C-alpha cells in the first residue's frame, strides 16, 4: 500500500525483516520452542529488560527478539509490512495512524477488556503506560534562581538571565523526533504559551536532540541547564541513577502533556498467540500486576485522578491532524521560524 502523503521521506523497499532497520539496541532471549516473538519498540532496553525477563520466565518456550528503533523508523517499518509481531511506541499519533489505516490486527482478551475506554481503540491499540512530559533542570545551574512552576515562569527566568542560559537549553528536534513533534503539536494546540516560549528558547540558541536520554544525560553532566519536554519515565530513571542530586524534575503546573505508550499487533504479525500474550502482559504490568519487573510508569498512575484537565492525549482520529503533510509543513515552518532561524542571527 502506498500512501501519497509520505512526502519528505525516501520511499525505501524494505525486505520485511527487522535486521534491515536502523536498530539502536537489540536483545534476543532464547526460548525452548521454535516460535520467535519479534518486537519493535521505541522503549530503551534499560527500561524494558526486567519486563522482558519476567515475560520470558513465564513463557520459556517463546524466543524473543526485542529491537529498539526510533518512532519514525518503527512507523515506516510497519507501514512497509515488516515482519513484526508487536509494535510498541510512545508516538501515539503514528501508532494511531497505523491502526486507522488498517495496519493492525484486532485482539480481545480478559486483559484488554479490563482497560478503560480511553486506553484502547477498536481493540487494536492498547495503552499500557501514561507518561507526562516534564522539564528537567540542573539544580546547580539554577542556583540562586527561583524554580519555575509554570511556562510563564520558565519564560520569565530565561528572559531575565539570557547569559546564564544561552546555549544551555535543550529540547527535541521536532523535525527528527516523532515524540518531540507530538509533544510540540499537542502543546501548541493546548496553550498559547508554547509559541512565546519557543520564541524565548530560539533566542537562547537551543540545542536540539533526537531523544530524551541524551538530553537528560547532558543535564546530569552539566552541559544543559534545562531540558524542555522530556519523557518523564526516562527522567525519573536518570534521576534515580543520579547520586549528585543535580537533576531535578519539574512538572509544569499550568499544563502538562501526558502521552500513552501503546502497543499494536501489526496486520502482518506471524505469531499472533504470542503477540497477544505479550500485549496481555504489558497491560497487566501497566496496571501494577507485575511488581518488580516494571520500570515504567503505571497506566492508572495518571494525573487524571489527581489534577483534572491533565488527562492523557486522547486516542482518536484527531491525532492524525498534525500528521497531515500540509499541516506538518505549516507547523514545521512556524517552528523553524521560532527556533532555528534565531540561532544564527
Amino acid at each position: 500500500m502506498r500512501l501519497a502523503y509520505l512526502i519528505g521521506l525516501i520511499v525505501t523497499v524494505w525486505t520485511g525483516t527487522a535486521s534491515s532497520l536502523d536498530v539502536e539496541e537489540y536483545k534476543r532471549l532464547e526460548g525452548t520452542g521454535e516460535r520467535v516473538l519479534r518486537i519493535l519498540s521505541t522503549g530503551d532496553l534499560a527500561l524494558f529488560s526486567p519486563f522482558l525477563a519476567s515475560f520470558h520466565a513465564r513463557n520459556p518456550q517463546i524466543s524473543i527478539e526485542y529491537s529498539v528503533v526510533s518512532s519514525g523508523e518503527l512507523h515506516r517499518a510497519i507501514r512497509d509490512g515488516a515482519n513484526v509481531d508487536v509494535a510498541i511506541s510512545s508516538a501515539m499519533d503514528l501508532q494511531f495512524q497505523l491502526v486507522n489505516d488498517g495496519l493492525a490486527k484486532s485482539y480481545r482478551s480478559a486483559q484488554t477488556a479490563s482497560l478503560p475506554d480511553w486506553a484502547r481503540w477498536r481493540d487494536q491499540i492498547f495503552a499500557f503506560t501514561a507518561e507526562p512530559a516534564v522539564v528537567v533542570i540542573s539544580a546547580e545551574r539554577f542556583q540562586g534562581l527561583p524554580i519555575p512552576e509554570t511556562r510563564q515562569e520558565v519564560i520569565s527566568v530565561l528572559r531575565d538571565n539570557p547569559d546564564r542560559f544561552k546555549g544551555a537549553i535543550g529540547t527535541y528536534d521536532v523535525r527528527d523526533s516523532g515524540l518531540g513533534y507530538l509533544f510540540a503539536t499537542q502543546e501548541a494546540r493546548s496553550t498559547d504559551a508554547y509559541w512565546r516560549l519557543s520564541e524565548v528558547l530560539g533566542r537562547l540558541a537551543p540545542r536540539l536532540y533526537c531523544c530524551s536520554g541524551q538530553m537528560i544525560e547532558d543535564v546530569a553532566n552539566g552541559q544543559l541547564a534545562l531540558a524542555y519536554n522530556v519523557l518523564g519515565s526516562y527522567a525519573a530513571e536518570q534521576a534515580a541513577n543520579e547520586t549528585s542530586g543535580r537533576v531535578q524534575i519539574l512538572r509544569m503546573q499550568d499544563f502538562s502533556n501526558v502521552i500513552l505508550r501503546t502497543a499494536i499487533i501489526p496486520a502482518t504479525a506471524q505469531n499472533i498467540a504470542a503477540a497477544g500474550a505479550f500485549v496481555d502482559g504489558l497491560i497487566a504490568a501497566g496496571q501494577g500486576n507485575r511488581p518488580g519487573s516494571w520500570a515504567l510508569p503505571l497506566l492508572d498512575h495518571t494525573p487524571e485522578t489527581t489534577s483534572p484537565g491533565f488527562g492523557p492525549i486522547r486516542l482518536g482520529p484527531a491525532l492524525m491532524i498534525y500528521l497531515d503533510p500540509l499541516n506538518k509543513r505549516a507547523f514545521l515552518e512556524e517552528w523553524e521560524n521560532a527556533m532555528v532561524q534565531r540561532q544564527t542571527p
Partner: protein
Amino acid sequence: MIATTSLGRKLTLLLAGVAALLSVLSWSMVTGLARQAAERTQDNVLSASVTTIAETLRTEQGEVRLELPYSAFSMLGAISQDRVFYKVVAGSRLLTGYADLQVPSGYGPDQGPGRVRFATGSYLGEDIRMASLTRFVQAGNSPVPVTVTVAQTRYGIGAITSDLSRHAAGLSIAFFLVAAGLTSLVARASLRPLKTITADVARRGPADLSPLHHKAPAELAPLLDALNRLMVRLGQSIRRSEDFIAEAAHRVRTPLATVRVQAEILLRATTGDAERQRLRQMIRAVDESSRSAGQLLDHATVVYRAEALARDPVDLGEVARQCAHALEPTAAMRDIALRIETQRAIVRGDPILIDNALRNILDNAIKYSPDDTTVTVRVLKDVETVRVSVTDQGPGLGNGAVEHLTERFRRGCNVEGIVGSGLGLTIAEAAIQAHGGRLELGKGPEGQGACVSLILSA
C-alpha cells in the same frame, strides 16, 4: 373420545402468533429507525467535519492552501471509534489525504457547489460513508474547484444499531411474553362458557335429561341445541326401552292374571277335594312364577340403577312410612299389626332403590310372620349412620349361617310352604351396598323373631 388439538391451545397459539408477529415487526421497525437515526447522526458529523475543513480553504501566492482543524477530526472521534479517511483535491491535483479514496464525482440535481453531498462506498475493504464539499477557490486567474471529502467507516452505526436492536429485541420479547400471558387469559375467558356447559353436563345425574338452559355465546348455540336434541332423543330411546320391558311384562302377566282369577272362580264352584287341591297348586304355581319374574326384573333394575347411582336427598323416615303403608293391607289380611316408629333422617341416594330394599325386607318379614303378630319398623339415627330395622315375631332366621341368606336364591331352612324366590334379601343387599351401606341380620329384642337392619351413613 378422541381429543384432537385443544381449542384453547389453538386460540392461544393463534393469538400468541399474532403477538410474535407484532413483536418481530416492532423489533425490525425499531432496528430500522435506529439505523436511520445513527446514519443521520454520522452524516451530520461528517457534514460538520467537511464544512470545517472547507472553511480553511484560501489562496496564498496563487496557491490553494488549507489546514485541517483539530476539531474536524476530534468531532468524528467523539461519536464512535470509526476509522477516518480524507482527501482534498484541487481541480485534478491531490492536495492531501488518501489518494486512492474513490470519491464519486459530479453533483446531483439538487447538489451544487457549497452543498455537502454524501455517498456510500468502500475503502480498504471496509464500508464507508463519505461527505464531500466542493468550493471554488481563486487560484491564479481562474477559480479552481476544490473538493474536500471526509469518510468514516460504519462500525459505530452497526454498534449503535445492534445495541438498540438488542434493547428493542428485549422489549419485543417482554411485549411478547406479556401478550402471550394475556392471550392465554383471554383464551381461557372466552372458553369459559364451554367449560360451564361441560361442568353442568358432567354434574348431572344419569336420569337428568332435561334441556340445558345457558346463556351461550352465538358460536356455542348450535352445540347447545344439538346437545339438547340429543338429550331429547336419548330420553325418548330410554322411554322406548322402558316401554318395551313394560309391554313384555304386560303381555306375560295379564294372561297369568286371567288364569289366576279363573282358577279362583273355579275353586269356589268346585266341591271335590282333589280338584280343589289341584286348583290351589295351580294358583300357587302362577304366584310363584310371577313373583320370581318380578323379582328377577327388580334385581336387574337394581343392578342397572346402582351403576350410575343418583345422590338425591332421601328421608328414610318417610320411605319407611310409605312402605309400611303400602304393605299394610297385606299384613292386615293376616291380622299382622305394623308398628311404625320413624323420624326424619336424610341420606343421599336413589329413593327408588332404597324404597325397594326396604319393601323387600318388610315383605319378607310379613310373609314369614305368624298370624296375629306384630312387625315393627324403626328408624334410628345417630351421628354417622341411619338404621332402619324391621323386627318380626316369627320363627327367626334359623340357626344356619345367617350371612348366606342374602345370597341369590338362598332361602332360610325353616320356610317350607311359603312362596318365595329367595331373591328378596339379595335385592335389598345389592341396593344398600350400592349406597355404601350394609344389611345386618339378627335376632329380635328378646331373642325371638328376626331383626333385619338396613344401615346407611347419614
